């Protein structure tokens, strides 16, 4: 609530996950004065989310990958804090970024939880956005029932609380991320009734890992195969959940086999009963609204997500703005750390990445691209939708309303759909429904740029996170200049 400004930093880093920690450490170790802003109460991001250190001061990292990397980054992060070069602001979200005359970034902040904590305005000459992402969702009948969660939400729940949100789980969607979610559920004592993977690949990880020169992934694949065998987890490929069943909360799911286009194979439906938590993940949506608000150029990645363009120094198309991790394309934690180091170093002193680092990043990007192609969002995912299936959870907009606005009123992009039906106008501002609304609005149009334009409109969130009018009324008004 304060309008106090801190003295300007050399580098501000948004996010304290794998990319953000690496960027912060790289910049601080090059002598830059660094500030790190993160929504969580302790470092780690979603990937290395762990129990509160007040409760468990020295977590051993069970169920985590790359925990040694985390411990290394964390000790360097803490060292930089103790020498005063790094300033860490947890429980803080950036709601808007402006630019002052000299190009300096002005970060407007708000507490992530509570409304009474005072936060400063932060100014910095360089900015590294490592904002990460969240699970991408596709609507289906029953997905609004309590007990239905994002796959990553289940993962985060287990990592942060050490408990399970339910007893009997189905994990569904596509991509290798479903595997660690199921493994963590099983390790925490939950029953995984099934993992439903819409694409057809079986045992693909070892091959793909070797083929693309990322051997670590092959090890992970073997590890999951062993865990699945041990816990008797059924990994069903070419299978989707067609609806979630339940009255006041999820109690069962109907599953079905699909063909390569995602069309349901008639007669293959069956009910999985006695399920209390259903986790869905269709890849991830990078959080790029802040970079987009600064004018960063975007592209559609191999997974269909809108991501920001970055060069070999992790520089965006906006001078002074660097990007690392999922915001440049979903690729996992190892890639995020590598990009974070490069971004932090570039932001601190403009240095060129080492050839070996550049190669490592290229390898991982190729792997990520192969992974995305092996796990596409099924082309016919929307065939599951009934008229009354909710598309926008916040504003409770049904599929019938969306279809009518598209076909009768001409809402053929997400922006117009929002105007006509309120999709994406609620609390989450289209974070959950944005991808689906873009697909549904553009359905039937031949314009190749329609999806890019739609996803761009969805990524425009001038208020990146809600804040009180009281906070806005006490903004300092130096009239900073925007791009």
């Amino acid at each position, binding site marked *: 609530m304060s309008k106090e400004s801190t003295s300007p930093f050399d580098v501000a880093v948004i996010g304290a996950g794998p990319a953000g920690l690496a960027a912060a450490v790289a910049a601080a170790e090059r002598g830059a004065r660094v500030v790190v802003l993160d929504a969580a109460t302790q470092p780690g991001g979603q990937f290395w989310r762990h129990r509160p250190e007040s409760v468990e001061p020295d977590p051993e990292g069970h169920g985590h990958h790359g925990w040694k990397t985390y411990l290394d980054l964390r000790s360097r992060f803490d060292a930089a804090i103790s020498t005063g070069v790094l300033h860490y602001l947890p429980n803080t979200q950036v709601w808007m970024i402006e630019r002052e005359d000299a190009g300096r970034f002005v970060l407007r902040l708000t507490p992530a939880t*509570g409304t009474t904590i005072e936060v400063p305005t932060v100014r910095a000459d360089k900015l590294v956005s490592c904002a990460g992402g969240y699970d991408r969702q596709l609507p289906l009948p029953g997905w609004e029932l309590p007990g239905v969660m994002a796959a990553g939400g289940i993962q985060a729940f287990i990592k942060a609380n050490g*408990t399970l*949100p339910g007893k009997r789980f189905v994990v569904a969607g596509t991509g290798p991320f479903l595997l660690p979610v199921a493994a963590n559920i099983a390790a925490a004592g939950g029953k995984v009734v099934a993992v439903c993977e819409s694409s057809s690949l079986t045992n693909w990880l070892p091959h793909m890992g070797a083929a693309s020169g990322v051997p670590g992934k092959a090890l992970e694949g073997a590890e999951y195969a062993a865990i699945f065998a041990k816990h008797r987890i059924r990994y069903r490929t070419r299978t989707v959940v067609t609806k979630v069943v339940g009255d006041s909360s999820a109690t069962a799911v109907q599953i079905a086999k699909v063909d390569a286009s995602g069309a349901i194979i008639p007669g293959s439906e069956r009910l999985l009963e006695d399920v209390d938590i259903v986790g869905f993940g269709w890849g991830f949506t990078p959080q790029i609204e802040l970079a987009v608000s600064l004018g960063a150029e975007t592209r559609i990645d191999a997974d269909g997500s809108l991501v920001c363009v970055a060069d070999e120094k992790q520089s965006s198309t906006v001078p002074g703005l660097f990007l690392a991790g999922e915001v440049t394309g979903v690729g996992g934690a190892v890639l995020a750390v590598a990009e974070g180091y490069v971004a932090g170093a570039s932001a601190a002193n403009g240095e060129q990445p080492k050839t070996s680092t550049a190669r490592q990043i290229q390898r991982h990007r190729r792997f990520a691209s192969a992974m995305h192609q092996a796990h596409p969002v099924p082309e016919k995912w929307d065939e599951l939708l009934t008229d009354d299936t909710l598309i926008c959870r*916040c504003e409770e907009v049904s599929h019938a309303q969306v279809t009518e606005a598209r076909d009768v009123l001409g809402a053929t992009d997400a922006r117009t759909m929002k105007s006509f039906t309120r999709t994406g106008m609620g609390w989450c501002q289209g974070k959950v429904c944005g991808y689906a609304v873009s697909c549904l609005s553009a359905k039937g149009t031949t314009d190749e740029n329609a999806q890019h334009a739609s996803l761009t409109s969805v990524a425009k969130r001038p208020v990146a996170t809600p804040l009180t009018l009281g906070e806005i009324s006490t903004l300092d008004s130096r009239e900073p200049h925007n791009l």
Partner: protein
Amino acid sequence: MSNPPQRITVNLNATPVQAEAGQSVGAVLMGQGIKAWRTTRNEGKPRGLFCGIGACYDCLITIDGEPNQRACMVQASDSMNIEGDFSA
């Protein structure tokens, strides 16, 4: 190296409930078997945790008198007052 869990007491609609320190409000509720704690504006449908990481705002709840707090983001603390529609 886990320490024995520290117990705290939170009030769910003024009913005291034991919980573990460091858990999110959402985890405390789910631990009590409560899966929904608000109803939607238009259709009155129950909602609880969904994205679990602060993006979706489905899990909003009143905490210590402050409405519309994200249950997945707020850590429970001793004598915290949590108010919601638990019949949802």
